[in-house]
């Protein structure tokens, strides 16, 4: 069951043209909680204190209308940069998968793979080898984490002996696209990895 403050934030999120960014969500939540704490000093009912705080804050429609008129709420710096950062982190893995699939699965455009990865792997350097593998494999994983941190709002705490919390997901269309492509890259890599190593692990082939 959502607390009155979390329900209010959900209402505000749907009333805003482009949704409620993380930064503004946190900012308004902090304000409402501070106001509710203030009322809780004189009012024994926590839920009642939250409702009073919301009433003083203004209806979700009113606040959304004013935000919509002024170009919407501001995003935090991290939220602004998370998507381009994730796209950059995911690109080497994406390129590797495309090149790999074109050459080894479809047997076309071998140069795409050979001219990049073979050149890199051909350099006799263990350190370079590790770096290339880390960028290709860990890049997409880091991209998923970067996007998730910008779009998932999760908070848990124990209050008066009961576990309370908030959970919301707010992704823009671009974020969904980058996340979708990244997850596909990670899944494709995992599939390759298990297809290559699985038979050896279960003893079908020698390794």
């Amino acid at each position, binding site marked *: 069951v959502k607390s009155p403050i979390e329900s209010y934030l959900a209402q505000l999120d749907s009333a805003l043209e482009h949704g409620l960014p993380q*930064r503004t969500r946190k900012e*308004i939540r*902090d*304000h409402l909680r501070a106001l509710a704490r203030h009322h809780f000093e004189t009012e024994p009912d926590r839920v009642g204190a939250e409702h009073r705080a919301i009433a003083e804050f203004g209806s979700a429609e009113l606040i959304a209308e004013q935000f919509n*008129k*002024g*170009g919407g709420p*501001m995003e935090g710096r991290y939220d602004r940069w998370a998507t381009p950062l994730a796209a950059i982190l995911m690109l080497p893995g994406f390129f590797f998968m495309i090149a790999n699939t074109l050459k080894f699965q479809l047997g076309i455009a071998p140069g795409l793979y050979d001219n990049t990865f073979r050149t890199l792997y051909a350099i006799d350097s263990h350190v370079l080898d590790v770096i290339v593998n880390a960028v290709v494999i860990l890049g997409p994983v880091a991209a998923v984490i970067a996007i998730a941190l910008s779009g998932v709002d999760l908070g848990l705490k124990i209050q008066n002996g009961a576990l309370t919390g908030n959970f919301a997901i707010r992704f823009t269309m671009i974020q969904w696209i980058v996340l979708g492509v990244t997850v596909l890259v990670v899944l494709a890599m995992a599939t390759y990895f298990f297809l290559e190593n699985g038979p050896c692990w279960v003893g079908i082939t020698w390794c």
Partner: protein
Amino acid sequence: MRGEAIKGHLELLLLAVIADKPAHGYALIEELRQRSHEAFDLPEGTVYPALHRLERSQLINSRWDTSSGRRRRIYALTRRGRKALAVQREEWRGFSAAVSGVLGDAR
């Protein structure tokens, strides 16, 4: 005073309050209330659309602060904001004097 009456002036009022001391939204609305002797009693949330408009115009900037033990977003005036405040203050004083002249307060 109804919120409608100060809607057009809220941004100038916020700039003036922030100019004295960087503060978070909750403190800003309290300061507005106190300085106006409770005359400016807006729904508290209306301060955020105004603050975000000011930040988008680069008249203020903001950062998270946890020095009080609680996380707050603190707003501070930028150089551009300080200049804008000076200009708007002068404009307001000129306007206010003109209105007073018409209404006959000076007589």
